[in-house]
């Protein structure tokens, strides 16, 4: 396997990465606005996220009595921070902010931080329904985490490395999605889960008065909702890097292909959300562990056998 050549960006790199993440997340939110407007028969709607952000920034921040302010603010702001830290190891074309040798494990570690942040946001509001939302998220997270970890192992085994640059480079001949479709599907499901999108919106559902977003207002609410879209965008970016060949494609430069693929995948995920019902939190554990785990383990077995044969021949 030839190691992927990625060039670490200089000091302005993180700012550019953050800006790119913000732009991609905003595009996802705009598509959501357009689809929501079309669903209710109106025209336009692409301006909805900006209008909502302006409204929330203007709103006064309210909190409950004896709320744990520190933990709530850490929880709410943490989602965007986790997404930004994830993007720090994502190679866009040939550029990366931080060429960590264990980039894939870092990605996994950052979405485990999301567990902590969502629960803290639920706890910090000192109210029953947000706390229930936080607990629901942990119940869903326990269910999807093991299949996600195995789905992340499949591209790592095929590329023989945990570095994101190497995994992207190992897809020169054939994109991983072609022979690891199960891992791709499991990965996308996990991305939807850790960014609190349907079908995993039980932590935020209406039957617990908005759940984790229940008592949030103003800047806190904006940060949490921004964090959801940022995590979805970062997850889509990683899906492109891990399974859809990274920046490969004819004519256009690498980074343009990468951003294009990420944006298209993000829009597909946003459009897909409207068609799926919301899962109850206890409905995920049994299918994920009883059906999901054996299937993804078989997938990893297939990948391992193909890799060994490919190396020895």
């Amino acid at each position, binding site marked *: 396997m030839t190691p992927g050549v990625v060039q670490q960006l200089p000091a302005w790199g993180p700012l550019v990465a953050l800006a790119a993440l913000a732009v991609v997340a905003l595009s996802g939110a705009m598509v959501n606005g357009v689809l929501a407007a079309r669903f209710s028969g109106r025209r336009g709607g692409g301006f909805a996220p900006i209008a909502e952000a302006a409204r929330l920034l203007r709103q006064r921040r309210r909190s409950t009595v*004896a*709320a*744990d302010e520190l*933990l709530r603010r850490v929880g709410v702001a943490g989602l965007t921070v986790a997404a930004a830290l994830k993007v720090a190891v994502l190679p866009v074309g040939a550029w990366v902010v931080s060429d*960590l*040798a*264990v980039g894939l*494990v*870092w990605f*996994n*570690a950052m979405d*485990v*931080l999301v*567990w*902590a942040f969502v*629960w*803290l946001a639920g*706890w*910090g509001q*000192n109210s029953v329904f947000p*706390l229930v939302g936080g*607990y629901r998220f*942990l*119940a869903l997270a*326990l*269910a999807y*985490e*093991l299949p996600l*970890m*195995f789905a992340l*192992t499949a591209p*790592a*085994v095929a590329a*023989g*490395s*945990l570095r994101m640059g190497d995994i992207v480079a190992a897809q020169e001949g054939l994109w991983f999605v072609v022979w690891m479709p199960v891992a791709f599907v499991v990965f996308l499901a996990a991305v939807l889960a850790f960014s609190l999108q349907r079908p995993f919106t039980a932590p935020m559902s209406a039957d617990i008065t908005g759940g984790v977003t229940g008592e949030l207002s103003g800047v806190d609410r904006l940060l949490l909702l921004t964090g959801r879209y940022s995590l979805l965008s970062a997850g889509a970016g990683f899906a492109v890097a891990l399974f859809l060949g990274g920046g490969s494609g004819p004519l256009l430069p690498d980074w343009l292909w990468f951003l294009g693929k990420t944006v298209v995948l993000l829009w597909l995920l946003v459009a897909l959300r409207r068609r799926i019902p919301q899962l109850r939190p*206890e409905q995920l*554990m049994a299918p994920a562990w009883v059906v999901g*785990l*054996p299937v993804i*383990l078989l997938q*990893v*077995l297939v*990948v*391992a*056998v193909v*890799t*060994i044969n490919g190396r020895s021949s």
Partner: protein
Amino acid sequence: MPEAILFVVLAVIAVAAGVAVFRTDSMARASYALAVSFVAVGLMLLQFRLEYIGVITVLMMVMEMAVMAIFMIMFMGMNPALMPMDMVHSKKLSAGSAIGLFLLLTAGILLADWPESRGPAGGDLTASLGEAIMEPKMLVMLVISPVLFATLVSALVLANPRGRYSTYPLVPVEDADDDGQGKGQDHSGDSAGHAAHSAHGMDHGAGNSDGHGQHHGGGGHQ
């Protein structure tokens, strides 16, 4: 020099967070102070170029602290307002022995004649860890896999609200028992989650150098 400063800052954060675990009044803050301490140690491991183990430490410990917070609140009540929580016994004896041990260890550390280093660390440490655990140190893998599996099973058996002796219900239990079963599933899932994700952490290390390791680890899980 900046490395040394970063190291000292992280060490101070780790110890301060550790002290905060026992000084704070709120259960959630105690659990997450411990999480901060572990994250600081994980970042210190990154400074030692133990990248894989450092990131794995951060991952696993944050996951464990998230679940531990649930347990703390389950057992100790639900008041997120800062309620005085000073439940200790033999405070003087334990503080005295902790401080005494610290002085003893520090004296030993400063006075001991540490040997010279055997040369710098080289090569791809993650790959060499994977190779080490599959070749010379395979006994570790062979022992840890069944131990983790046994932990999974025994934690589930112990935590199951049905108890260790009742048979598996072949007819569905009625709704009155539903909460117990559902909660039992969740709790046992929590304990199982601890062991299972660590077992998978081992597979990460093995998988990137040799595909056999993946299969072996997978077999151990099932």
